[in-house]
């Protein structure tokens, strides 16, 4: 059993050659477990040197997508493109160019950080022991302590050190901050940002936390139910998505019946709400506006739209409607769908 050389060259097939600015692309990835479709035709593109926040709820398909990108799972359909090399499944040679930190760490409990470095280094030809030692020092990981005796945060940092010590072209982190305390989360994200800033490291990290994406990501992809619902820059996303809110409606004047008996003893009928006129949605049927979510209540309509026109949301709204900007969290909710059961 021999592995292909670590150096990857683009194929001769012109169709497989893509824009060089992409470090990683996924094209139409699909994965089913029995009857359940976990990832359903997902497209994804991570630009070189950027940090990509892969945002989605628990169970949205983030980990399955990442495991397919890492070659741990085989996609049922679709292709993956690493640095211009298109493949159905990530090969061992390609994996050597990736640093990977999984959601939970399953290190050998008897191995110390130093032993883990020696072991993992055996699988990467360009393993840099000095860099690994430096990372252990910088990340304050005791090199001779067994991995079973390290805290969750320490273990995650150790995983990051192991992922970085072979100078990967691409760093893939699967919910790296899950289970960490706020300080450790902040520390971890700073390390990732420094890696991108100082070493131009392309990074894809998955998370279900919007604040992390806001803090670290240059580009965001929002996945829901195995489908990429949005992919783009954060600023564009903020500019494109707005909430359209109906102003309070005018009640229809209805003549009140005369009261026949003013005595205190007689029971009074309950006050009925006055009927109102529902305003017509001004964006219904307009090209360039995509309804993401309808949050309407009986009293008023609330509609979240994404505008894909070159200059979004510049047109004035008719009377009775106002446009509200949204936080990234609201936008995520609109995409990922806040599904509160009516109880």
């Amino acid at each position, binding site marked *: 059993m021999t592995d292909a050389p670590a150096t990857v060259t683009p194929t001769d097939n012109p169709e497989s050659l893509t824009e060089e600015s992409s470090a990683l692309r996924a094209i139409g990835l699909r994965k089913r477990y029995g009857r359940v479709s976990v990832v359903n035709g997902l497209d994804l593109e991570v630009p070189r040197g950027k940090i990509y926040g892969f945002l989605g709820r628990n169970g949205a398909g983030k980990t399955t997508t990442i*495991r397919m990108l890492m070659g*741990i799972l085989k996609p049922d359909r679709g292709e993956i493109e690493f640095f211009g090399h298109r493949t159905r499944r990530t090969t061992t040679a390609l994996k050597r160019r990736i640093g990977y930190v999984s959601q939970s760490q399953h290190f050998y*409990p008897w191995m110390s950080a130093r032993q883990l470095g020696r072991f993992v280094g055996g*699988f990467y030809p360009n393993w840099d022991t000095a860099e690994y030692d430096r990372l252990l020092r910088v990340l304050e990981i005791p090199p001779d302590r067994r991995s079973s005796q390290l805290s969750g945060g320490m273990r995650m940092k150790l995983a990051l050190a192991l992922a970085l010590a072979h100078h990967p072209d691409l760093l893939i982190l699967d919910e790296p901050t899950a289970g960490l305390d706020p300080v450790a989360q902040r520390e971890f994200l700073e390390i990732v940002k420094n890696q991108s800033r100082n070493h131009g490291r392309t990074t894809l990290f998955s998370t279900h936390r919007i604040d992390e994406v806001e803090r670290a990501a240059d580009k965001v992809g929002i996945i829901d139910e195995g489908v990429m619902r949005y992919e783009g820059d954060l600023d564009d996303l903020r500019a494109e998505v707005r909430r359209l809110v109906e102003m309070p409606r005018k009640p229809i004047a209805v003549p009140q019946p005369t009261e026949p008996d003013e005595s205190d003893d007689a029971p009074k009928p309950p006050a009925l709400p006055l009927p109102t006129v529902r305003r017509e949605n001004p964006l219904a049927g307009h090209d360039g506006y995509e309804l993401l979510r309808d949050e309407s209540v009986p009293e008023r309509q609330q509609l979240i739209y994404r505008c894909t026109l070159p200059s979004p949301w510049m047109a004035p709204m008719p009377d009775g409607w106002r446009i509200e900007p949204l936080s990234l969290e609201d936008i995520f909710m609109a995409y990922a769908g806040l599904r509160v059961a009516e109880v």
Partner: protein
Amino acid sequence: MTSTLIRKELHQHWWAFLLIGLLSLLGIGWILLFSIMQGQGGSHLIAMRLHAFLLAFSALILGNRLVVAEYSSRTQLFLESLPLPRLRIVLVKFFLGLIVILLSAAGGLSIALVVSARTEVYTPRFIGILNARYLCFAVFVYCFFFGMGFLGRYRFVGYALIIGGITLLTRIRDLQMSDLAPIHLVGGTFPFEREVYPVTSLAITGGLALAFFLLAVALASVREGSVSSLLGERMSYRDKITLTALIFGILSAAYVIDEHKTKAPYQLAGGAEAADTRIARVTVAPTSREARELADQIGKDLDAMADFLGLESMPPIFVIERPDLDPDQFEYGWLDSAEGVIVRTAFRHPDWRYALCLEHLVGDVIENTSHGRAMKEDRFWVIDGFTLYWPHRGDSDAPLDRDRHLLLRALYGTEHLGELRKPGDLHRWFTHQERVGHEITAGIGWSLLRVLEQEAGADAARNWMRTVLATERSPSLISAYRDWETPIDTRFQKITGMSLPEFLGRWNEALDPWRETLAEPLEKLPTIQGKLEFEGEEGATTQVHYDFSPPGETDPEYFTRPVLLYGETAPFEVQLPESQLKRHPLASEESREGWLPETWGSGTGFTWTFAADSPALRCRIISGWRHTHIP
């Protein structure tokens, strides 16, 4: 990449490898010890049985450490995140463990071959067979435990189902586990099969090994390893309850089947039944006055034997007349689906002897009632002796020459076998039978019981015979444990108050005076000799040339009617029933050398001995049974 994985495995499981090394040394130590204990007698390769057990235990340890430890702690997920194909992870583990097991197997076998060189004559074919059998077994046990390891927590269910299934199968079909591959490869025939490769067993074992290896690869790969990962999780409370119920169910089923397996008594139409018997049920057919008398006599004697041994039941006996048989011939009928012992004999022949008939029946009844446990080689002298002791029972203080022909058999036998002074000499009873014939060894057994009766007292002798012959418990793990916990020799000392070596010393002392007293008849008992040669071209049939060496001047009272007894044996069969033996008379001068009328194909099993009747002993004397394969 591979070397990194190997280093990791060695570092992680160093104590397991060390333990396997120690087990291997223990096995080798046992082989050496066995060789010292065995001396010049028997095959030293028998010691490989314990080594095979230790080898299987080593494979269990390896399967657990290399597979179960990895998948139950989910560290395989860490390996899968590295640039490392999943299949390589499995193959590195597999071959590392396989090398360790094969080294252990080869080490043990090599040592056994070296130490056995003192007593074995090796041929390249014999060594090839031994290697093929043992190494194939080693590969199988390793593949089995490696594959089962991937079932994770369900491997226990797998073990329970396999053990339960085999137990049920052997109970239902009356099969011996040791006859089934792969156990057969290291079973009773392992040290003795010199000529024929057990191709079927090797093929089955190799096929099973491959199947378990493929199971391992499939479970490690299917659904990207998620199946093995799920199976590797620890057992839940519900799993444990289910497993316990499953094991209990299998054991109950085995017990119920065993209980219901009791065969219905054989129904013989017509025949005279023994009257007024308590335990023995005897039928002699066809009905006649002689048949009725014979049935009554057998019933009376077997009832008395049941009282003597404390038996509470015995199988029904059916004696059927067959006038065409010689008066000293007894042909047994095998009952597949009914209970009982069938004997065909010419009981109305003028030369027919009742005592001889009873000798045969006693042995059969005890074999049946003891579930075969009285037939173990280390205690076989008791049943062999009892077949003569009971029909010729009498006053325990009577001198041994009251039954002169039996005493002569004992003296003649010991003269040809050499001194029997150590317990180990009694443990090789089957070898003695092959050398001098079972009628002579029965005479030795009879003399041992008679001397025991005189030295330890009638009660102690009877208790000893009851202990060995009246074991009515069916074979089980508990009875096997009891046998192991208190070996038969220890039980002998507890019951008789004498150690076995001490008793053998007294027995020799008791026989010595008779050797002088009966020196003259003993001198008249000749040693029978002769040789056989096989002649035939390769690929063609083979003819057998015999050359009988008559003992010179002989007394017909001690030597008469010499014959060559021979027969074709099935694979691994060494003994043939009397009815299947052919007789080539050698009485006349011109018939003492010549060719047997038949021809045989190469590889056919062949057994033979020169023999003659000895009226003084009332039995046959032989040159010694030989077993070979037609070249």
